[in-house]
């Protein structure tokens, strides 16, 4: 069974789920935006996010975030979080003139990285190519390409990302809704639920200013 969600609902759900899974607020903000971006590209980022959060549940940020020493980005704990990695790449690619090349080791759920690269491409008017074993896609200002392959990307991959000359492609048809599997929705909702504070008698009375008759 699948659900039809607005893009705003996707962004909000992912934002809260990522926070519930322990990400910093600012990283969760980026994750929400990227989930919305992928949905608009007709790409299912929500299943990958649900799997990623489950896989990394309880892990320390330092263990899954990219270490910047040396030429290759890798994680101390083995696999790179695509959200933390995507945030770093997004932060570093503001300059329109520079050509970029990043080597990434053991990136989990590269489909999520594709979301970050696609958003950067759209923003900067650049085209990025990502290649690795069993994996090749490119992200241009008009969308993500090799979509079929994108929906079947491996769960972990070594990837080389580099800026390339624009590729002539027709703009992708973008979606205004997201289709989310019930399973992914339930997993993300469970993570989001961790951000909520249970009510107490005191908070019921004071939290929203209850105790005054409102029925008049």
């Amino acid at each position, binding site marked *: 069974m699948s659900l039809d969600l607005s893009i705003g609902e996707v962004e909000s759900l992912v934002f809260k789920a990522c926070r519930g899974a322990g990400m910093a607020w600012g990283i969760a903000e980026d994750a929400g935006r990227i989930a919305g971006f992928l949905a608009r590209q007709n790409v299912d980022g929500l299943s990958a996010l649900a799997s990623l959060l489950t896989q990394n549940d309880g892990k320390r940020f330092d263990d899954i975030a990219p270490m910047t020493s040396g030429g290759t980005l890798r994680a101390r704990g083995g696999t790179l979080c695509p959200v933390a990695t995507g945030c770093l790449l997004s932060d570093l690619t503001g300059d329109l003139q520079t050509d970029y090349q990043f080597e990434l080791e053991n990136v989990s759920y590269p489909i999520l990285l594709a979301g970050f690269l696609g958003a950067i491409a759209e923003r900067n008017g650049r085209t990025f190519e990502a290649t690795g074993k069993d994996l090749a896609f490119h992200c241009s200002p008009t969308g993500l390409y090799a979509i079929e392959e994108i929906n079947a990307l491996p769960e972990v991959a070594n990837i080389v990302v580099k800026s390339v000359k624009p590729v002539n492609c027709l703009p992708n048809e973008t979606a205004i809704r997201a289709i989310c599997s019930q399973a992914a929705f339930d997993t993300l909702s469970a993570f989001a639920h961790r951000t909520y504070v249970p009510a107490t008698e005191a908070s019921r009375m004071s939290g929203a200013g*209850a105790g005054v008759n409102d029925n008049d």
Partner: protein
Amino acid sequence: MRLARLGAFHQSRLSFMRVLLRRLKREGWQFDRPVWEIDAQGVGHGVYRARGPQRTYCLVAFAHDLDPAKRSDRVIAEEWDATFTLFDGEPTLADIERLARNVPKQEAGRVSQSELSLSRANRSVRLFEYVKSCLARGEQPEAERLDEVGYLMRTTAVYGSGKFGALDYRFIRDREEFSSPFQAEMLSVYLTRAFTIDIVEHLAEQEAPGTAVKMSPHLKRRLGVGNSTGLGMAPYLVNHPALIHKWIAARETALSRVRAIKNASSEDVAIFLNVLRRQIRSTDLWNTASAAHMERIVELREDLDRLCTHVSGDGVLAADYPWEGLYQWGQENLALEGQELLVSLMLEPYGALVDDLASEMSVDEQARSRIDGSMRISELRSLLAQYYQFAEEFRPDWRDDNARFWYVSEEKLEPRLGERHDEPGADLEFPLAISRDAKVLAHDCARAEDDELVAQFLLRHPEHRHLVRRVQLAPYAGFSEINDNLISADLVPIDLLRCKLSFFGATHFDPRSDRWVRITMYQNAPYPDELAEADSDRWVYPEVEDSY
């Protein structure tokens, strides 16, 4: 801008309700009610159609027979007297059937990409039955009783963009009629107001067929739609910094244009004096049970008297740069409420000069959401010093500076404000403590190398990422931050609501506690069927008999 000032804002020409009605009139929108299938008990549905030059929208209203014991304005209610959705186009029978299964459930239902809003309203216990029984007897209700309450029904939430399955605003932003913010929601409330009159007249007619009368147009005008708003709205101003900047910047730009006028024509002065008198009438009708707020209203009445006396003095408005002079006088002689109301009144004669700003109050919030990781820490420090001076006031060790925390309640899924030192849950605090977080960021920046890249810094300090994004936005959005501590023991949460509601165009703020407020929307506005003939511009100010 400080929160106390934001919390003293009043509606103005740039408020979204007024922007909408000006457009509806200018473009000659047509209104009718093609469907009214409501039975003798007041149960059924009606459709209100608004046809513009390019597109049609329909408010689908569901009327219910609510057990009075279940009538509550709190967002936690599960049943209402009436529920609504604004449909994008004209609904088919199948659409209506789908909506009938979902809209009455509100948050527990789903709407679709064909819907632009979801809302509900309850009858005013103080007024609805009274008006119905008057009309059923063939009599008109007393004007004073109507003025006391100001509305027949109160909305308790009006959900828009993307909420509960509705279409996201980003997909309708490029429609001319939605170029200003919240226009779909404002249209929905405007049509809801017509429903509140129709339903009370319908029920009166059912009670006394042949005897019942319709409400007279001049009495109807006095009624708006009520609204009860709580903390759910409060984080909005903080969570949408680029947008809030646009709203305040538009208002400030309008003010600066008027202050720069060298000579006020006699027509402009007459308009100003007219709305001032009408505003005095409106302020006389503004009452609240909140003692603290009533003090402000009483002070405002005195300030308006003082303003009247001042402007009737020789040559005050005949001098060069009269509005600049009046503005300066206001800063020196009026309290915050009066100062901000004066700003709204000064804009009134100058629609041709300021109304264009309404189309600049919307923003693509994602456009500047990227963090510039190539910035050096030295520059980030400069931005903090320049734009976050208010955070220097935050004292981490002072209990009162750190007294509260914002969170989302598991039970209601709504934002709430907790007492940090007395209640559990502070570990799940939402990031609204901008003062505190900016202070901590400044502290960590001070210990970083000058030439460290922000991208590297954020790998070491991911907890600062949300704030760095705000700091980097600040140079482009000078009004993006509320320059106050939002977790202070002194915080007045309804100031956050009042600011947003004033931009909507709400009047008669009636705080029911420090955390929720009742307001009136569209009071004195022409109804859809009157719009073509009526004043669509300064309707918000009630008519006074001796106005000149």
